[in-house]
């Protein structure tokens, strides 16, 4: 008995649905499995970002004045624009998933490209923000200096003491704490940016596949990959929905 015959006799219902995995019996089972698997991945991502939010919350609780001073340097315009852009990209992604489900590959391709477009705008905004911070020496490495923060908030500094209105802190401590804010800012938005970048790459792959499906007039392609990337993309949008108010708006200060 050669190896080929040992393979399972290809059940008739598999031929109709080529993308049905060998280990699955029905397409509903596979779709449910993909959805639950993606949600498990998103749960893990929620806790991954959750650790960062917990750290940020503890230091915001301890060093409120310095964090408020540091967050004034963030431009609320860019923040709002980025949130707007991501929300719209979520919308176009949902439309792409809808089109894929209805096997309308041309509309699916169109909306995928729109999503990539908005995601790229988001990354471009990020590039401007980061480069502006780089020139202001606000990147939290060895070359960090709190000059810009002091200048931006018009804080008075005499004999090594920064006056924060309610209280005064030494310049060295003030620099340390604002550096802490910026390290959390760069780690959280940087990690989120990486996730957006990974999203763009996967969306590009999906766009190519959508184009191939459209050109070859594939009667019913597997829409699950598009739905999975949709779930991932909406999650990335949700992380920014929490990041924006906590970092840029600091809750009403």
């Amino acid at each position, binding site marked *: 008995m050669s190896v080929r015959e040992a393979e399972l006799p290809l059940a008739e219902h598999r031929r109709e649905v080529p993308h049905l995995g060998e280990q699955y019996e029905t397409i509903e089972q596979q779709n449910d499995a993909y959805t639950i698997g993606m949600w498990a991945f998103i749960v893990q991502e929620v806790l991954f970002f959750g650790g960062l939010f917990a750290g940020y919350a503890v230091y915001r609780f301890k060093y409120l004045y310095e964090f408020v001073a540091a967050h004034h340097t963030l431009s609320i315009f860019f923040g709002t624009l980025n949130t707007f852009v991501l929300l719209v990209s979520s919308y176009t992604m949902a439309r792409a998933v809808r089109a894929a489900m209805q096997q309308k590959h041309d509309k699916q391709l169109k909306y995928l490209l729109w999503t990539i477009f908005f995601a790229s705008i988001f990354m471009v905004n990020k590039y401007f923000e980061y480069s502006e911070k780089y020139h202001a020496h606000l990147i939290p490495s060895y070359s960090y200096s709190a000059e810009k923060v002091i200048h931006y908030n018009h804080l008075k500094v005499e004999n*090594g*003491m920064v006056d*924060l209105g*309610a*209280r*005064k802190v030494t310049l060295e*401590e003030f620099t340390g704490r604002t550096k802490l804010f910026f390290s959390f800012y760069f780690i959280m938005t940087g990690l989120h940016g990486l996730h957006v970048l990974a999203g763009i790459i996967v969306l590009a792959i999906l766009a190519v596949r959508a184009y191939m499906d459209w050109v070859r007039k594939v009667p019913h392609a597997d829409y699950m990959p598009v739905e999975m990337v949709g779930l991932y993309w909406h999650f990335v949008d949700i992380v920014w929905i929490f990041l924006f108010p906590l970092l840029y708006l600091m809750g009403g200060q």
Partner: protein
Amino acid sequence: MWSIPFVPPTASKEGETISALYWTISWLAVFFGSIVLFGAIYLAVKYRASNEAARRSDAVETDMKLELTWTLLPLVLALAIFAWSAKLYAGIYAPREGAYEVFVIGKQWMWHCQHPNGVRENNELHLPAGRLIKVNAISQDVIHAFSIPAFRVKRDVVPGRYNTMFFTPTKPGKYHLFCTEYCGTKHSEMIGWVYVMPPEEFEKWLAGGGAAAAPTAMSLEEQGKQVFEGVGACNTCHMNPNSAVKAPDLRGLFGKKVKLADGSTVVADEAYIRESILNPAAKVVAGYQAAMPSYQGVLSEEQVIQLIAYIKSLANQKPAGGQ
């Protein structure tokens, strides 16, 4: 010749109660442990396949009564142990009045202990028997842990904050002191001795400037006063009638409640005073400007401790009105 010790010496009041708790849990563990271990072996032998004599029944698959007993019984025992141990835990770490205070500074690979009267010791600590001791510990670099097994007490020594613990040594003697939180290469050399002496012998030792160890005869308060008027130059503003700057009067301050600029009140304990020295703007007293410069990096940990001791010595004087 090999007198193998199996039990640590018990030399503190807390130690006795904690040992009692320890042995209670241990005997419970031995009791339940032997039931399970020997019970399982006995059952496995009695009901081995080749022994047809044993009565077998496949009917019983679960028995609610049995399940409840071996759920509730351990639960009740566990809660009893929990309540007893929580009370003892609070006894060690909750603040108590009237304790003989020792400051301990842990730095990479040595202990530095300081008595209220200024006597300083490295890797050694002399304590009076029978008196409540309060150890106030802080680290200068990484996390260490000040552990005296004979007293059954231990406190992590964390950089940047005071950790305190309370115990009452009883039996005079020489006991081990260890660092038990991993702190680097010479973690296992960061050890020392704690000497418990009868009270009068301890007073004699202390008065004699701690025999070998302490170079200066001055007490902690005197050193604190020296820093207050010397390098700290605190008296330019504090308790100086003709000073330009209005600064809070430190007499009668320690231990009292202080109303802050932002409306909250806080007890003036060591942590508040240390923070007000190193970061004065953190808790500004109501009615005063945040004008005091910070002494972070200006004064060493020892000098801060001496200042705190000096301010404590002012606690019972009456503040001059108006300042």
